[in-house]
């Protein structure tokens, strides 16, 4: 069994690698083939600045890693070579290597996304189970689900904008700009950590509120199906207490089928950072992407894109493997 699990994990890793390779390759090819090919755009902007053609081509090559004169497949190969060797080109606005710029941004986004993800998951499970368990209290469940539906129809960036304007700037209830208080040194001290948590209150609230409804609805849909299953009735007949029935029966059986959705929620939150980090002026991959997009800093844009895809592939792989290990139904084949 152990050996077979290792083999299975190895196979999953291989598939994830292929998916990653194809996802990056297809994206790069789509980007260089699109009417807005970055190499051409960059070349045009250099030429506009009055740079001689030869020099402009060399500059583009230096920044992006590929030249505007190459065919698409050669651009793709050159760029991919850079991805594998860790060289993603040079940032036009920061003048640093893209790898360096991105490396500085990753920890912030990692913290922000995993913090929001865990709160979303916990709250979503609690709300989904509550809605199912107290389904006889029609008024209570209806009001929760109406609130969630309304929340579901507010795009996360609108939520961010409204919270920023009102809870932040106008009413001064929470900090609304920067990852920590400017008068604190960024060092591993309690004071620093508290300041970071305080500054992330609004952004995390936005993230959680925007992704909570989907997760809670998915869970309550599963749970209301599970609660009608024979094994739940049988558990009741055996005299099990409702606490045990909720945790080991309803919760476990409703979370497992939608376990894979965790990876989707994760990807969704990661993309959400583009708006939310930007709105609250936080460092991270999202704000980096939106700032460099504004500045037409193509090397960083594509670099951030590649990193986000990589993180998503890793997230999928992790959910996939853990799911196979925790759900007995994944292990037994269909006859």
């Amino acid at each position: 069994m152990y050996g077979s699990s290792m083999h299975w994990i190895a196979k999953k890793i291989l598939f994830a690698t292929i998916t990653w390779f194809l996802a990056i390759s297809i994206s790069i090819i789509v980007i260089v083939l699109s009417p807005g090919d970055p190499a051409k755009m960059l070349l045009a902007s250099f030429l506009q600045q009055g740079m001689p053609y030869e020099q402009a081509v060399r500059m583009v090559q230096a920044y992006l890693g590929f030249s505007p004169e190459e065919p698409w497949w050669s651009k793709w190969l050159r760029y991919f070579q850079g991805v594998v060797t860790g060289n993603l080109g040079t940032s036009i606005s920061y003048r640093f290597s893209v790898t360096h710029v991105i490396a500085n941004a990753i920890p912030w986004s990692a913290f922000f996304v995993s913090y929001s993800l865990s709160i979303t998951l916990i709250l979503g499970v609690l709300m989904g189970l509550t809605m199912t368990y107290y389904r006889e209290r029609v008024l209570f469940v209806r009001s929760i689900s109406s609130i969630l539906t309304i929340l579901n129809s507010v795009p996360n960036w609108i939520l961010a904008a409204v919270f920023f304007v009102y809870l932040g700037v106008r009413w001064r209830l929470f900090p609304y700009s920067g990852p920590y208080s400017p008068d604190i040194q960024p060092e591993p001290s309690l004071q620093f950590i508290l300041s970071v948590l305080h500054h992330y209150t609004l952004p995390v609230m936005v993230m959680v509120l925007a992704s909570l409804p989907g997760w809670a609805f998915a869970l309550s849909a599963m749970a209301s199906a599970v609660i009608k299953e024979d094994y739940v009735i049988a558990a009741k007949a055996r005299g099990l207490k409702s606490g045990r029935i909720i945790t080991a029966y309803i919760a476990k059986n409703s979370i497992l089928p939608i376990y894979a959705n965790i990876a989707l929620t994760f990807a969704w939150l990661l993309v959400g950072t583009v708006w939310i980090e930007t709105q609250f002026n936080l460092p991270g991959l999202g704000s980096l992407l939106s700032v460099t997009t504004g500045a037409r800093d193509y090397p960083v844009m594509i670099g951030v894109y590649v990193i986000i895809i990589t993180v998503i592939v890793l997230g999928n792989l992790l959910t996939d493997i853990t799911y196979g290990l925790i759900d007995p139904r994944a292990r037994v084949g269909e006859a």
Partner: protein
Amino acid sequence: MNTIKPLIEVRNLGVSYLNIKVISNIDFTVFKGEVFALVGESGCGKSTAANAILRILPEIASIDPTSIITYHKDDLNSLNLLAMDEQVFSREIRWREISMVFQGALNSLNPVIKIRDHFTETARAHGIKDRKWILDRARELLEAVKLDPDRVLNLYPIEMSGGMKQRTLIALALLLNPKFVILDEPTTALDVLIQREIISLLKDLKNKFNLTYMLITHDIALVADIADRIAIMYAGRIVEEADIYDIFYKPLHPYTQGLLMSVPKLGEFKEEIVTIPGMPPDYRNLPSGCKFHPRCPYAMDICRKEEPPIIKLDRERRIACWIHLR
């Protein structure tokens, strides 16, 4: 059977689902040490009656306030199960006194926990904390149902065949040494040979652990194999109740007769297939008078107008039919 004492007495039991009455004030008694069978087609209310005894009806169901289910715990204590506090009932009656064997083909075991956990959680819910005692008892019972305890305890339900699940459910039902076991379609959807094994297993266990069974089934042939007394249900009513031999050799109610006739006997080749005409009734729209009259070959005027009461013909025999009330 030396002295016949009642174990459970159901009086005037009525159950409605969303104001539709599915069990209409039925009475029956199960005596200590017997196998009592409640037989009828799907939707006749037999499972609802069983679930009412264990108080596991769905929320949309309501039991008539006049219903009484008396459980004779011992010579001194008789309890009205329907009047008990839910917590007390759950702790002291469910599974400790009365348990149930669910249909194994259904999804009655939690797919994401091991068989071992099914045993431990059930014992713990009734205040038994001694893990060693629980596992020893589980092993003993699994052996009694002819399973390999060391293997089965570590399996997930999905890793077991239908027959294994059914045996496990039987073992689980006996965990807390109950006196009364409700068997809900215990062989339905199992293969013929496994059915046979389960039946002989149930007989052995009954003698070994001094059990009283109430069998819920639509399979009249299964009843012939194991039951002592039978009540036939139709449209939420008991239409005939008698000793097994009376039912099979001297059926009185036309429905009972039809039911027996429609079952093929092995080695009997008949050109004409006898069937009960028509369809089972719809609860939203029950016929007037006797509920069976639209399908009854002997229906008379009175059958269409008045519902026959259930009367006692002799000591062990009851019937609700105008033909026999004259």
